């Protein structure tokens, strides 16, 4: 169903267990991407990561769906640029052929020809998958490895846009980056914004959660305090919401909006009659609602609707207010 459905389970396990190699690229990406399309790039001091960055852009890599589908551990195609890079390094063909089916040997070849850290960050043994399979390319994050080029950018964004944000954009870059990606007419031409993204990526924290989460430790104090504070705020919000339901004054019967004190209405002349009729004390406030009902405040503060004010006068009409200086 999804784009990654065909990805082997073993490959997933290997990738999940593999650390991300955040070693900076040794090859200027502008130059590298300029040479990718023509297969003229010959890495000298570059690590295989640089090759891996460019691998999906060429040939079969372009024909495959973007993302992890192009990365199948232990089944490297002979035309793969890493192999090509090994050839350019002068590695004998038998060694390359042997390493193609032997991830451990491949790692040693890479290590020997491109230096420490080029194959894995976990040392010679390398990471081991759940089922014990070695991961041939543990240092390669296919999604992020393509950040340095404009190729397949749209596809990557569609697949996992968060992966772009997760590692952090340069401040103010996301919008320009997105438009740059989508407007790139020459996909094999390096984009300065993307090169900048690749350069920023290693310096940014991958996740907001500390790598080793142990609540209460000094390293995680800030994060833990923030976590606790946010949960307390959430708790208070829920509490306020519940109190609002059960103890909200809005749920108490009150005179409707627009009700006025009776002495401000034409029924002011009937005030004494009304109070006498409803049997309320001097403390009981009386209001007339917009629809003409008499609302009287009880001793406990609650309000009672005593019906239309016209029922309290013999004529059914208000006696009005006296002409005074107040008017």
């Amino acid at each position, binding site marked *: 169903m999804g784009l990654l459905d065909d990805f082997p389970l073993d490959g997933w396990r290997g990738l999940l267990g593999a650390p991300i190699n955040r070693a900076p690229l040794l090859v200027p990406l502008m130059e590298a991407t300029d040479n990718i399309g023509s297969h003229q790039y010959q890495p000298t001091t570059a690590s295989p990561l640089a090759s891996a960055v460019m691998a999906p852009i060429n040939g079969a890599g372009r024909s495959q769906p973007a993302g992890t589908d192009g990365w199948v551990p232990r089944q490297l195609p002979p035309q793969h640029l890493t192999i090509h890079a090994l050839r350019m390094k002068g590695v004998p063909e038998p060694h390359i052929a042997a390493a193609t089916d032997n991830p451990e040997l491949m790692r040693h070849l890479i290590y020997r020809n491109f230096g420490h850290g080029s194959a894995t960050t976990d040392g010679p043994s390398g990471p081991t998958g759940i089922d014990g399979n070695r991961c041939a390319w543990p240092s390669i994050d296919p999604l992020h490895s393509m950040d340095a080029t404009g190729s397949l950018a749209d596809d990557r964004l569609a697949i996992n846009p968060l992966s772009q944000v997760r590692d952090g954009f340069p401040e103010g870059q996301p919008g320009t980056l997105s438009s740059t990606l989508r407007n790139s007419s020459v996909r094999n031409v390096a984009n300065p914004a993307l090169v900048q993204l690749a350069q920023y990526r290693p310096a940014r924290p991958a996740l907001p959660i500390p790598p080793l989460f142990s609540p209460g430790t000094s390293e995680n104090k800030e994060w833990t305090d923030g976590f606790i504070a946010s949960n307390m705020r959430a708790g208070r919000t829920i509490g306020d919401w519940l109190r609002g339901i059960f103890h909200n004054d809005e749920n108490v019967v009150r005179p409707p909006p627009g009700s006025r004190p009776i002495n401000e209405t034409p029924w002011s002349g009937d005030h004494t009659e009304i109070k*006498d009729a409803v049997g309320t004390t001097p403390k009981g406030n009386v209001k007339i609602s917009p629809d003409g009902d008499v609302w009287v405040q009880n001793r406990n503060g609650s309000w009672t609707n005593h019906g239309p004010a016209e029922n309290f006068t013999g004529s059914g009409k208000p006696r009005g207010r*006296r002409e005074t200086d107040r008017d």
Partner: protein
Amino acid sequence: MMTEQDPDEDQSDLRYRVRLLIHHPNMDPSRITKALGITPHLSVMAGGERRTRTGAVLPGPHAFSIWSYSFSVEGKRHFFSDVERMADTLEPHKDLLAEIDSSGGSINLIFDLPGDVNLGSELGWREMARLADLHVVLGIEVFPDFR
């Protein structure tokens, strides 16, 4: 309701109303009527049906029992003079008033005064003591458009 005239006063705009208002959570108001020997103008039982003066039914029952009696006075300035008179009426039923008060009820003696005329009065300590002994609450309310 009754109207009284003070022969010593010729100012016809002097007027006020006296109300004896009793509230109780559940007492039958007829018991008060029978005890005091006064016919109230308002007598409702707690939990009873609420109706307007025209007979229309209002939503919800009465929250408490109400017993009320009132009378109007005209041409009289010294309105507290009626306190002594009311005390004379209530003192024989002191036990009932105490029962009303102790069981959650209240006895209010209320003076409704007009706000458009000058009225003045004094309540002596003896009258205050009598009201206190009867568990009566003294209330005063002024109405700007008193009729």
